[in-house]
């Protein structure tokens, strides 16, 4: 077999494998399984998948914005607005806390379910 042809075949296979990996990574979207859990004074307020953009009004006390697989707090009624300064969270276990209002926003893993009832 021509050496050049062999190289071409190897190259073609390499490209196919890399492409398949890319397709797999792109189609997974990365954030499917993770979700945000919000509690007020320890009481469950709601759970929301991190994979879909949305704005959650938390009992009129503050707003949790989920955007591009990350979550942050806006429009908090607390005096110091420390919670708005915490930035964004996106990994399981990370949390945002609004101490004065007793609100915790947490990223949870293994939430590949659409709903838990």
């Amino acid at each position, binding site marked *: 077999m021509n050496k050049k042809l062999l190289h071409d075949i190897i190259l073609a296979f390499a490209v196919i494998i890399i492409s398949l990996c890319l397709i797999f990574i792109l*189609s997974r979207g990365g954030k499917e399984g993770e979700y945000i859990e919000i509690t007020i004074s320890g009481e469950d307020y709601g759970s929301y998948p991190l994979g879909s953009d*949305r704005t959650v009004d938390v009992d009129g006390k503050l707003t949790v914005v989920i955007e591009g697989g990350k979550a942050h707090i806006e429009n908090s009624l607390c005096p110091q607005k420390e919670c708005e300064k915490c930035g964004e969270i996106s990994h399981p276990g990370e949390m945002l806390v609004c101490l004065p209002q007793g609100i915790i926003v947490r990223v949870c893993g293994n939430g590949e379910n659409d709903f838990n009832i």
Partner: protein
Amino acid sequence: MGKKAIKSFSLLMALLLAVALFPACNSKQRYSRDYLGYFDTSCIFTAYCTEKSEFDSAADKLDSEMERLHRLFDVYNEYEGINNLKTVNDNAGKAPVTVENELISLAEYGKKYYEMTNGTLNIAMGSVLRLWHEALGGGAFPTDDQLKSAGEHCNIEKLIITEDTLYLEDSAMSVDVGAIAKGYAAEYLAKFLKDEGMESFALNLGGNVITVGEKPEGKWKIGIKNPEGDGNSAVLSVSDTSVVTSGDYERYIIKDGVRYNHIISSETLYPSDNFRSVTVVCKNSLLADALSTSLFCMSLEDGKALAKKSGADIMWILPSGDIVRTEGFSEYE
């Protein structure tokens, strides 16, 4: 450059193009919206759409429809310009009330399920439910005497349905459709969304889930909460199917160390403590809702017979934590 090098270069380009275009082929995005003001619970609408505007438009229309149904089924508030169930209850013993088709249909289903469950599901026990509703809202706890006397005014035969009116013959009775309203709404709203052109969506009306079509990556996954603590007791994979759970952990009060949940037995007039939760899987969301409430208030034996008769698949979680399933239920796990 040799011919073969050009060939493989072209191949490389073609594959890169395929990769670049892949997300476009699979471009349906997931969108969700919450609704906190309806049916005394929180509702979520999740759908896969090509455009956000497509989702927003459907979600807005859904909002109006949900509000309309919520107002019709409301037994505590009146709204200008409509006759709802409060109007019907306020006119008990006085006069028939002209109502929308949806209320006639809901009342007819109420009677049908009363027959099917041998009276376990009774939409005419509003007088009893009102007492528990107050207690669960932090008000006074009902006494035995109060419950007994309210229980004397739950005769569903005295709910008179005509083509366009509802009438309660007993002035002390009232209708409460809490046991089937969310199921009816889920079924109705899913049909509404299908008519709007939605093909892949799920609605969760406070534990009453209806799924239509599949997600791009496959079936919908519904976790059934473990009543004992964290996590789920089961995870179901479904499409074009409804899943409804009635549990004692959803809404309850604790008095003198005893837990009182919100699912009231029509027989004892007290919260049923036969199970921690009952999950029903079947095509029709209304049937699923009616069954989950009734099965929660029945013995396991009677429930198994009803499950067989209805063709639905059931999972019962007993107070001991033991789980009992019908044969078909495991196929969803």
